[in-house]
């Protein structure tokens, strides 16, 4: 039988393993499949077998030299981070936890989530303003959502366009040593971690892309977490954007 003419039964395990390792699942499928991997040894084995091939595909991209300015930009930020940590005389501790993931989003279950709006968590002005801004004739529009931010003087806005979001913050306090800001997305249930970890400039500014699609996301939030991020929020949110 020609397998090409006989697509796999959608109910069979493993059918999403190949598009998963190639990054070709839709956001919704990706989330569902990551959850499925938690409990399915067959699919984990299939993913492991195919992942080794996907991981060598970058080798066939035409090789280029990275621009020198790129290194200067990256290392300037890295050294600024390192210098700040050094100046404050702290060293990374074992408190930083390693999070294992299959890919962009966690495949792990999230054990608990404290109520988002714990009493006193946010002593800030809440202003949720959605403004539709024409994008300049391209047909897509950008929705700007002003987020709740703390402390006073801090400001955060979420720019949503075509299912993608970017968070702009200003006036935020710098994170303590060994800590970073972590972006979370919440659809239903517990908030999910993202790979978006960031620090702010000396002026408290930062711009960070929210990984993945935000379709179906109800809340995007930011917490202060140990360097390396956390599996579940360990502090109250300092930024909350309601979509």
């Amino acid at each position: 039988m020609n397998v090409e003419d006989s697509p796999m039964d959608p109910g069979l395990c493993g059918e999403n393993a190949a598009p998963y390792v190639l990054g070709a699942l839709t956001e919704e499928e990706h989330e569902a499949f990551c959850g499925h991997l938690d409990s399915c040894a067959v699919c984990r084995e299939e993913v492991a077998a195919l992942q080794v091939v996907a991981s060598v595909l970058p080798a066939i991209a035409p090789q280029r030299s990275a621009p020198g300015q790129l290194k200067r930009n990256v290392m300037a930020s890295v050294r600024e981070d390192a210098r700040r940590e050094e100046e404050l005389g702290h060293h990374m501790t074992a408190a930083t936890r390693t999070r294992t993931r299959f890919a962009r989003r966690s495949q792990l279950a999230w054990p608990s989530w404290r109520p988002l709006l714990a009493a006193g968590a946010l002593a800030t002005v809440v202003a949720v303003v959605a403004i539709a801004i024409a994008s300049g004739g391209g047909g897509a529009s950008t929705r700007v959502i002003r987020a709740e931010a703390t402390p006073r003087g801090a400001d955060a806005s979420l720019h949503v366009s075509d299912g993608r979001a970017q968070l702009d913050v200003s006036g935020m306090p710098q994170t303590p040593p060994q800590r970073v800001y972590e972006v979370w997305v919440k659809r239903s249930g517990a908030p999910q971690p993202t790979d978006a970890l960031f620090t702010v400039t000396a002026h408290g500014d930062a711009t960070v892309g929210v990984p993945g699609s935000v379709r179906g996301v109800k809340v995007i939030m930011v917490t202060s977490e140990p360097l390396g991020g956390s599996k579940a929020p360990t502090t109250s949110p300092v930024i909350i954007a309601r979509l």
Partner: protein
Amino acid sequence: MFNPLRPDGGSGSTERLRVLADEELMQLVYRSSADAFEVIYDRHADAAFSLAYRMCAQRALAEDVVQESFLSLWRSRARYDRGRGSVRTWVLGIVHNRAIDALRRRTVRDKGIVNDEGLEERVAAPERTELDVARREEAREIRHALDELPGEQSKVIELAYFGGMTHVQIASMLDTPVGTIKGRMRLGLAKMRMALGDPTEMVQ
């Protein structure tokens, strides 16, 4: 005295770190050594930029992806788990995911930007070391394994991995059922694995 954990590392510290393996460097990176991270950057930035450029086909976007990826790597360095693969695999995996996000984040207006792939002369890194030579030979093997696949299988793999397209988009573009697209992806990857022996043994 040489101290890799000092932000400046001391004179010539980066050069001394270059003799260390990636995994050894990551132990220093974990402890906030910017010098060790610089060595990691130097080793993998060309591959990262090459992948990003192949996917984005725009120099500026590729640069954004690589910069964002390396800063993410630095700030999430505690997440590196050597049990899940090499540092290079970790780096390129993050670049791939970031490039997919960038491609899918582009607005309709952005998509009107002319790709500059092909407009600029490719600047291939010179073969400087035996490792470079080995990598290029392996790249030829991987390319050959992909080219040996039936066209419909290699096409869906390239559209997905390098084009950042979902299987649904590919199915629509090729006017083919999604199940067939998934099957082609799986068959193609499985055949490549057989052709390449044990890809985990590669120096990539």
